[in-house]
């Protein structure tokens, strides 16, 4: 009896893998719920400050980066399904395409939109806040895309090492859920920045 007690003191009863999986999923969704509130706050700030107006932005660029990000979500889904069918080749291919599309999105937003938009952090006067909100919304979103890309790079590396399989794909699924979430945020941000309201302020 004494040895048994000792054993119990040092080894907590293990949690079954299925339960661990359910707990992990719930934890992730709670994190995403929380993060959604952050983006909701930014979203509300945009309507508080811009109302029914928006800055003049490059419509072609906005549409392009949006399509790029949406397509990346397809490849993320494909990567998750591939690893759930133990298809490592397709997994690696799809996840690398996702990473490339994510980088292309960031390049489009930070590399092009930030350089070419008629409002930016140097805008003076009453339209300065258009630059501020534009950079804040796209910047915070791009930061999440960046963390997503880092996460996907880790997943790609570990997939390459053969750490994932149809029985062990939680990390991939978590990465996929996060990536889709960041994508969905952009689905709200894109119309709020590019489509809704009357375009005002400086032009190109």
């Amino acid at each position, binding site marked *: 009896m004494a040895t048994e007690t000792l054993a119990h*003191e040092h080894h907590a009863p293990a949690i079954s893998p299925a339960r661990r999986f359910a*707990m992990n999923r719930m*934890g992730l969704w*709670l994190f995403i719920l929380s993060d959604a*509130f952050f983006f909701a706050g930014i979203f509300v700030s945009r309507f508080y400050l811009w109302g029914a107006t928006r800055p003049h932005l490059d419509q072609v660029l906005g549409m392009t980066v949006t399509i790029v990000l949406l397509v990346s979500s397809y490849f993320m889904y494909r990567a998750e399904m591939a690893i759930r069918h133990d298809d490592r080749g397709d997994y690696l291919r799809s996840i690398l395409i996702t990473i490339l599309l994510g980088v292309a999105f960031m390049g489009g937003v930070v590399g092009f939109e930030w350089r070419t938009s008629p409002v930016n952090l140097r805008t003076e006067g009453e339209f*300065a806040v258009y630059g501020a909100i534009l950079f804040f919304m796209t910047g915070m979103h791009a930061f999440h895309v960046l963390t997503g890309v880092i996460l996907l790079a880790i997943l790609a*590396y570990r997939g390459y*090492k053969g750490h994932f399989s149809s029985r062990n794909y939680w990390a991939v699924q978590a990465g996929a859920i996060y990536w889709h979430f960041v994508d969905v945020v952009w689905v709200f941000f894109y119309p709020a920045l590019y489509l809704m309201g009357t375009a005002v302020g400086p032009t190109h």
Partner: protein
Amino acid sequence: MPTWLRIVLGFLIGAVLGAAVFVGVRAVGGLPPLADDLRPLYAMAVFSGLVGLMLGIDRQLGLPRGLVGMATGFVVGILATVGIRSLMGLTPWDTESVWVVASFVAPIGFLLGVGALSDWLRWIVGIHTPDQHGPPPGKPGWFRYFGFDQNHKVIGIQYTVTGILLMGIAGTLAMIFRTELLAPGMQFLKPDTFNTFISMHGIVMIASILLGVGGMANYLVPLMLGANDMAFPRLNGFAFWITVPSAILIIMAIFFGGWDTGWTGYAPLSVRTFMGVNFFMIGMFFFGFSSILGSANLIVTTLKMRAPGMTLFRMPIFVWAVLATSFIQLTATQFIGLSFLMVVLERNLGMGFFNTALGGDPLLFQHLFWFYSHPAVYIFILPGLGIVSELLPVFSRKPLFGYRWIALSSMAIALLGFMVWAHHMFTAGIPNALRLPFMYTTMLVAVPTGVKFFSWLGTVWRGKLFFPTPMLFVLASIAVFLIGGLTGPPLATVPTDLHLHDSYFVVGHFHATMFGGFVFPFFAALYYWFPKITGRMYNERLGQIHFALQTTGFYIMSLTMARTGLLGMRRRIADYDPAMNIQNLHIIMTLAGFAIFIGVLIGVYNLVVSARRGEVAVMNPWGSRSPEWQIPSPVPEHNYEEPFEVVGNPYDYGLPGTAYVRMNGHEKTTAPAALPAH
């Protein structure tokens, strides 16, 4: 080498290194190595000396390693900013931007140093790390409390002790500025210092309350649910350790001019004031990570790790309260992070969110800020009210009156908390159309709160009451929270609020809610679970003295505050007109404040001394039905040897033959309370 020599050497080496780094960083920034004011240099030397001292005691200690990591983070952040600025063709050294970037890097350095990220970093490259069980091999028992640990009880104690330390700092600041207010005119504080002290008193108290809530929740929730630990033990440790660099950042603000906005940090003042405001805001930003991740952890634990038979409506009422609190913390915290981030960005990058000249709007800050900070007060009070509901049946030997209503009233308060934020802005120039709905939603909060009061009365009614220290504190909580509750409606009603806004009446109101909703229940919980945590009893006589000082002191203080407010004293003001005839009231408030301060000191002394020398406690001194009292004290490493089963209602005290849990094959019927002899 003998230990004492290592400690002395550690201190000396640390102090010299700290001073050298200080001078070196200034030199890199192109400043003269020694400033006119040498106090920051001395502070740095003493601080790093203490780090060295701790490393001298044991090189593996997590806390000093984290502090070294934090200092390294500062240096790296400063050097990186200087480098980037010179690459961009700007002047290399800009004090504010250099320190802002460094403040974002430093907490990461701390977490790396303390070891909070080690396991996760290994997971990235696919190395499996086992869960940690028990203290590190070959180290004394106290060792694990000063470093990264995964056990929820260790983390709970870390939260609680850090919370009490911060409470001490914030309370000391309060005593200083209350002494200043003894007479009209400025006595010994400069107005800016006074403003910094009131701001810091507010925010450090809030941090301490969040830590206290985290401490109670972390220690008790897994125990009450019958879980062996939290759902995510590493995340739990991370959530605690990120609060330490955050608190350090907030306190560091003192060395950078402080800030004078009060704890609310309203724009546009926060955009224009001293640069210390950056440290406060970035510190709170990182503190938010603890709230968010800790509450996600608690929610998953509560929903997924309950003992067999424990349906939601058989959970202990404290767990309900923590669940409600966690949902607020999980979501609303994002908004204070957001609003503070926007202020830091406006200060440093000129993004004019809150500047009307740039198209912004300062009211936006208030909306974002209060969307967190009003629900936040329910974060502070709900666990405390849960403690009151938890302990009252034990000391009344009667079932909790209206269990389901109490459980759901916490949820209702949490939900309503999201719909009342603009009542802080009645005088800020919001449209009239917004004032009325917010007045009514605010009044609605009185309904679920009233449910709680009604239940407490129903519980003690015709009970067999007995009055050890925890029960005294529970009764005081109710009495004090009642002042907070009754002073609420005049502030919720628009016409009276226009008169009372920003007066000492408000100060009296929220101190009563915070004391009744957190401080008194927190001490009740500390005394009540003290024998469970330490295996020893506290000193009953000292507990009673603590209770008497704190309760009478507080009653006098908060009622006098409310009265002074009605007579026209504004909050956050360093001086008052002698013609207002309120000096006597200020003297009363200050003396009452000192009574509370001394009472708390006695309480802490009692707990510290009793933890080592108190008489050994019996297993279940209060005759509680709760599962944690059916196992030995202190609780074994993994709580329950065998999972228990819930077979009844938690609070059926006084109903013969009923049991809440079946453990090791025995139904644990209510045991009589074994009171310590006085």
